[in-house]
């Protein structure tokens, strides 16, 4: 298992679970949940600082130091390629030259569905500027392929709407993407509980990114641990290769011979 690494932009990671850092009660819960998840890559958002209101308060990057975690700045809340690029340039400045980023360009505030033309445009600019782009996208194999061709280091199709917890609504599309795209495919958005994460990994996804499923569980730390185990179990099951489904063919697991009630 130790040799089974997730490779993103040439860098190996032991955990295939990536987690967001939003929606927690406080930084202490954030820290404990993320530790329990075993995640090495954690997403952050870029926002205006509250001028004059945060002196002395801890900051997220003190709770989750870049020396310990790979920080993945996102473009959540951006609706145009221009805003997304601008946000990630600022993120690179905050993180002192850090290149790995999560691109998401949203289409509307109700569905948070990705705007793919803007996502593709932003990806093109970001790749040209030396960013390593992990792109949130719809579960359209053609879009995923185009993101790969533009030079994205990972594609991250949604399982269902961001924050919906509805699980994997179209496993067949995900499977097509997994089969056609060579860069890592991570399910991003829509995971609700551990079985969703396991199913994503059993399909052959390279990883899973989630936030709300952990942060909004009744016990986020416990759910973080559940997700860690689910991702590991799903990955192991994928690598082990599941048995064939045989809908009309039962097969006993115990020997058919040697039954005591059978007369000789």
């Amino acid at each position, binding site marked *: 298992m130790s040799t089974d690494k997730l490779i993103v932009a040439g860098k190996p990671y032991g955990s295939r679970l990536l987690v967001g850092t*939003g929606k927690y009660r406080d930084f202490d819960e954030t820290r404990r949940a993320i530790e329990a998840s075993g995640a090495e890559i954690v997403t952050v958002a*870029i926002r205006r600082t509250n001028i004059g209101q945060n002196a002395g308060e801890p900051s997220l990057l003190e709770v989750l130091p870049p020396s310990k975690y790979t920080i993945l700045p996102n473009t*959540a809340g951006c609706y145009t390629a221009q805003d997304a690029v601008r946000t990630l340039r600022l993120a690179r400045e905050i993180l002192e030259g850090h290149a790995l980023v999560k691109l998401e360009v949203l289409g509307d505030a109700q569905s948070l569905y990705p705007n793919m033309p803007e996502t593709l445009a932003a990806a093109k600019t970001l790749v040209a500027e030396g960013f390593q782009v992990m792109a949130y996208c719809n579960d359209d194999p053609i879009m995923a392929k185009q993101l790969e061709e533009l030079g994205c280091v990972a594609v991250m199709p949604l399982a269902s709407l961001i924050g919906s917890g509805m699980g994997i609504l179209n496993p067949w599309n995900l499977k097509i993407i997994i089969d056609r795209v060579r860069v890592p495919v991570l399910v991003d958005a829509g995971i609700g509980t551990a079985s969703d994460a396991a199913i994503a990994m059993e399909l052959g996804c390279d990883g899973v990114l989630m936030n709300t499923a952990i942060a909004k569980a009744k016990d986020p730390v416990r759910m973080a641990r559940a997700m860690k185990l689910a991702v590991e179990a799903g990955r192991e099951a994928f690598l082990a290769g599941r048995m064939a489904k045989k809908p009309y063919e039962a097969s006993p697991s115990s020997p058919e011979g040697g039954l005591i009630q059978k007369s000789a």
Partner: protein
Amino acid sequence: MSAPIKVTLNGAPREFPAPLTFTQLLDELALAGRRFAVERNGEIVPRSRFAEARLADGDRIEVVIAVGGG
């Protein structure tokens, strides 16, 4: 004594005594020891320029940090 500099800082109008460098501005904001980035009129102001670069009247300044997000 020159007129104060009027800037928009994270969306809000602010006035500071002139002349004002980015280092002076950031000292006022008590961001010492934090990771942040600064943008002036849509362009990044690199850390290396904080000491010398001066703010001008009408500048739109953004100071951003990393926060929790998914």
